[in-house]
């Protein structure tokens, strides 16, 4: 990941709904426009967490398939 990242959270060790909760808690610590890096599992987390982030007004700006059953995404707080 090349972009500037302000914080990082790993949610590969938890399941729904704690996945999204951990991301929300991490985002609360950030200012508008700051970037959170999130590592998550393939399957249910990658299908649901980005959609829930969108519903709450955040933006997923980058997605990398780590080719090991996980994805790393960048989330911009409160979109804009």
């Amino acid at each position, binding site marked *: 990941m090349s972009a500037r990242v302000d914080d990082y959270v790993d949610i590969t060790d938890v399941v729904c709904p704690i996945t999204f909760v951990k991301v929300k808690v991490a985002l609360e610590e950030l200012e508008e426009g700051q970037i959170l890096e999130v590592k998550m599992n393939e399957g249910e987390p*990658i299908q649901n967490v*980005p*959609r829930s982030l*969108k519903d709450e007004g955040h933006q997923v*700006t980058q997605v990398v398939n780590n080719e090991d059953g996980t994805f790393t995404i960048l989330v911009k707080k409160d979109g804009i």
Partner: protein
Amino acid sequence: MAVNYKELKQGGFMRQIQKDNFSMRLRIVGGQIEAKHLKKVYEIAEKYGQGYVHMTSRQGIEIPFIKLEDVEAVKNELTSSGLQPGACGPRVRTITACQGRKICPSGLIDTTELAQEFDRRYFARELPHKFKLGITGCSNNCLKAEENDLGVKGGMKPEWIEESCTFCGLCEAVCPKGAIQVQKKDKQVLLDESKCNSCGKCVKSCSFDAWGGKSGYIVYFGGLFGNQIATGRQLLPIIYTEEILYRVVDTTLEFFQRYGKKSERFGLTMERVGWDSLEKELKEISR
């Protein structure tokens, strides 16, 4: 006077093993009941039943232990409060539905409204055998479209909007069918329509609204989940208008009325007479 059990059953009163006791089914649409009606259900269960209700497998409510001599009184109490008895026997049954896009973030169609329209048009229509209609809002399939005689599932045909795309790669990651390829370096997005299952997950998740699309109805025919089990078949591409959807349901019910044998479920009629003829009729009317 002899008791007409058949007529009682038709009107939602099902015989119990206890002589002259009936489990009364209510007409519920899309799994919803107003709170004031629920209060009436409570009152009837307390006054005429044994103070409890049974929740059926298809979102229905039954009040057991209604006595034969109370049937008329219960019917009157129901109708005066705006409730109605349900249907059993060889006819269109309770229309089931999930909460759909008015409530659920995953929903692609307004299932509640569609269930109400289906109920107005088709509820209790006489057919060779029971006929179940169910509506689910998306491919998560909470309401199990394929197990109904005719099931409807919300779908969406995605369209890529190049000027909004940032090539972040999210749609490729969320697509459960591997139908999307994001070529970040070349700034290209490829959609393999033959793999796309119209689930709409790309559209729902894109932060930049670089996927748009039209929502529609995917229809499944001939599902069974009782004595025999069969998965409903999709015979048509996704349907985009309610008008065509109703035409498809009308044609299907008429087909079953015409070719179905008494006590033969729709899916088994189709196995006997062949799916081709129905598919041909449906394709003609859904053009």
